[in-house]
């Protein structure tokens, strides 16, 4: 089994863990981390395909996309974190309550 297959299969597992985390985890920070894990899975999938399609060097397009993707995901996560902190500051809530 080639290395890329291991990682591309791992990517699906990470993605599912991320989705599950978003649903099950209750604390804001855990939910935010879950999105990053989900994203990690997706990026792993991209990069494993890049490795598969390597000639003289690995396919650079997925690499570029993943770098872009990481930055975008981190920007979103930082925003989410700021929101979560602000909510905690104003209400003391660390998770979504039923009525919100």
């Amino acid at each position: 089994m080639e290395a890329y297959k291991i990682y591309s299969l791992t990517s699906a597992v990470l993605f599912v863990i991320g989705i599950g985390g978003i649903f099950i985890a209750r604390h804001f920070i855990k939910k935010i981390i879950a999105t990053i894990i989900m994203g990690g899975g997706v990026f792993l999938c991209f990069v494993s395909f890049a490795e598969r399609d390597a000639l003289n060097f690995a396919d650079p397009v997925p690499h570029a996309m993943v770098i872009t993707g990481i930055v975008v995901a981190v920007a979103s996560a930082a925003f989410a974190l700021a929101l979560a902190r602000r909510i905690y500051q104003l209400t003391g809530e660390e998770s979504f309550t039923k009525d919100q």
Partner: protein
Amino acid sequence: MSVLIDGILAILAIYLALQCLMAQRLTQTVFLFFAFGLALALAWIRLGAVDVAIAEAAIAAGFLGVLLLDALRDFSPTFSQKQKNPETGQNPPGKDDNKPPFLPRLALGFGLGLFLLISLEAIWKTPEGGGLTAASEAFLPESGVEHPVTAVLLNFRAYDTWLEIGVILMGLLAIFVVGGIRLYSRPFTAAQDPLLRQVILFFTPVLFLFGAFLLYFGKSGPGGAFQAAVLWGAIGILLHLGGRPVFSVMPRWLLQLILTMGLGFFLLLGFLLMATGNALFEYPPAYSGIMILIVETLAAVSIAAALTAIFANVNLMKEDPNQTESTT
């Protein structure tokens, strides 16, 4: 052997991800998240994606990790401690009492398991599309840089990269919306601690040099604007934490200029190229190398400033919830 290493790494990543989400203490979650990021970075290296590894380690694990650590100061270390303690205290801190009911959880687990199986099958059976390696290789000489990833990021698909620089700026604006603009509220006080002051003094030039090296090296090897920007951003964060918040001494127009110049110059250059009859971001081959370097440098400065500003603003959010200013 290599399969073994890859397998162990994969299992480690999955284990860390699971542990990270299941940890009872937030601190554990955050540190496991660091570890997860590093495991992922190792995976990138195993897959030959050094640029991605640097980006992952620096931005996802590093920068986001620092933000998460900073957030820990706000939240109580164990989840929902606040809700449990004052009452009967019958819930030990280790137990999550707000779990959703059993049946939905079962359904969710079942659904996710099914989804996982389908996705594994789909990935296993993915036909070989061939990717764009050959195309990138063919056009690499015309791109003005030698490193293919940099060529894709700043020439072939410069449009995405430009939008992405915009996303960082938008993220900063969004944080301004949430927490108010607090960049200027930190007094400029030198760190009281002599050790910290010396370390900052020492690391600032080192980080700067290393960032500059990565930026320039991006032309021919792994590295480039984002990686450099994170290192430079680290300088800003370090200075901020060491009591030297750079933005509170800087005139506003300068900060505004620094924050926007990467994006703005990139676009203005694009428009200029359009005015000379080219498409947006279509560099004349003769000048593409130098243009890319300028764009990268300015973008790196802007991103570094934006990352610093994001951290500083989030960090200062808890200082005084009422003290805000109304304009940038």
